[in-house]
């Protein structure tokens, strides 16, 4: 499939005049030629195909928002090339804007004092959406995002979850080819997060809208995005399927053996003991080829084994392991 977003060695360096403390310092700032440089995005390359859903993950200050701003054309890269839908986004800002939808979790695009519907209607004019298409989309979005109860209420009266759903609907009314979301689930409770995730996954699947979202919440990625791009300190750490990340790091499954009584120390070659609570013993399975059967075979009969629990590592743990072991892996990454 042809890629609709292509980043090649994209860099963004923020240069800010060095601020000196105090009033005199403030005045000197006007004349100083000293700058502090922040390398927010540092040589990032990737390709995104039409219809993909990609999660952009990284700790605070990793350069996620900066990258989104460059792809949406409101920030110019310092170096490298960036192409969105075949165009350079910042020099074609208006053309680009007409074909993408953007949601900033921290910044509202709705008209604060007016009913949600009025903001939607304004978008109909801004994007010149044909009347039939608009009605159809509005009906679909209202039903899918369950907005019927508050679409005629002023935005300032809405809960954060309701507002976020309205923001997402607003960004989709004009059938954008790509939907960019910068932390769309920030501040939402579990139920609201779930509604947003289900909806985004559905939009990606049913309508084929390409989705790129940044987040701190790994579940977002697990539920919406098969593909993960991980960045830290402006640099790309990992780009690929979530499954592959798990495989790269080894699955590190957790095994708990429960016995009727304390069987005394148990030593296995296939599993490493991590904690011993007497009747319950916890192990880590580092080697993926080891099966539960292998472990039980090695253990043998006669210990009064009562229960066995094998847990797949959750994504949080995978990522945490990744950050811990980052130095070696980053060296190995392309």
């Amino acid at each position, binding site marked *: 499939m042809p890629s609709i977003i292509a980043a090649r060695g994209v860099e963004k360096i923020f240069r800010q005049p060095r601020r000196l403390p105090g009033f005199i310092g403030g005045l000197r700032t006007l004349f100083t030629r000293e700058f502090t440089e922040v390398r927010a995005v540092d040589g990032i390359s990737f390709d995104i195909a039409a219809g993909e859903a990609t999660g952009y993950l990284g700790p605070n200050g990793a350069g996620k928002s900066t990258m989104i701003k460059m792809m949406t054309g409101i920030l110019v890269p310092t170096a490298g090339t960036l192409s969105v839908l075949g165009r350079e986004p910042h020099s074609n800002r208006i053309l680009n804007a007409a074909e993408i939808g953007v949601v900033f979790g921290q910044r509202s695009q709705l008209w604060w004092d007016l009913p949600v519907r009025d903001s939607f209607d304004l978008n109909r004019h*801004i994007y010149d959406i044909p009347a039939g298409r608009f009605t159809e989309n509005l009906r679909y979005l209202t039903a899918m995002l369950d907005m019927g109860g508050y679409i005629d209420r002023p935005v300032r009266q809405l809960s954060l979850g309701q507002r976020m759903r309205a923001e997402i609907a607003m960004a989709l009314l004009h059938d954008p080819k790509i939907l960019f979301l910068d932390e769309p689930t920030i501040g939402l409770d579990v139920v609201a997060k779930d509604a947003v995730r289900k909806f985004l996954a559905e939009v990606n699947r049913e309508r084929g809208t390409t989705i790129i979202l940044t987040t701190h919440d790994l579940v977002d990625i697990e539920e919406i995005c098969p593909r993960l791009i991980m960045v830290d300190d402006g640099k790309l750490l990992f780009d690929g399927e979530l499954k592959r990340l798990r495989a790269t790091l080894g699955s590190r499954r957790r095994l708990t053996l429960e016995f009727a009584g304390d069987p005394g120390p148990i030593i296995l070659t296939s599993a490493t003991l991590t904690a011993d609570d007497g009747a319950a013993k916890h192990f880590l399975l580092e080697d993926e080829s080891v099966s539960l059967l292998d472990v039980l075979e090695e253990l043998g009969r006669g210990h009064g084994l009562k229960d066995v629990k094998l847990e797949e590592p959750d994504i949080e743990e995978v990522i945490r392991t990744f950050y811990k072991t980052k130095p070696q892996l980053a060296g190995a990454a392309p």
Partner: protein
Amino acid sequence: MKVSAYPAFTVTAFLSRLVYRNQVWSGVFGELVATFAFIAVWTAAFSGSRNVDGVTLPDMVTYVLIAGPLLNWNTTRYIREVGDSIRNGDVTVFLLKPLHYPALLFFNQLGNNAFEQLTITLPVAVIVALTVGLLPPASPAHGLLFLAFWAVSWCMLFLIATLTGLLAFWLLTAFSLEWFLRGIMALASGAVVPLWFMPGALAALLGHLPFAWVSYYPSAVYLGKLDAPTSGVYLLIGLSWLAALAALAGWLWSRARHRLVVQGG
């Protein structure tokens, strides 16, 4: 997008203001007090004489209303909005849309202003007309010319306010700039004292600055103090000023946008 999308912003801005319609009463009251204070001052200044330098008291009453509430609308709120939205980055929301931001500001402010004219200036004008009396335009031709001057006046004040808001982005102190502008406007626009009552040299100087097109020239045309050919000349000069200020605002905006997209604000 189509150009016809911009008027939708005028409607939206108007509707937004309608939400706070309960607040208009204080606006009407304030404007009414100010207008009657000015009328009282002019009544005292005329102290019984029918005519001062060819100007009558009814002329001045009408002048107070046109030059003040009608043409010299309050820019404070708008200037704050422009400066703040650039400084705190809210402007990026608009940059994400297929829109020209300055055009959006223009139509947005048109909606805000239409609201204020309808809810504040109109009631005040009706009350003044019923109590003290207002004059009609000096002639149908002056009435038509006034409409053209009114449009120029609106654009002039919009551009002056936009320039102030954009400058505030660099100077980071919208507050002092606003007060500075307010002082200049009170004197140079002719909203308080018409240029025809000012000393010759001052009037000649102010008569060539863009501020005079906000209040003085449109009001003078309405009252028939300028004949049609002279009005035409001043209309052209006003349009030239508009072009110059629009170019300056466009340049400042492109600098501000450059800074936003390159330095991230």
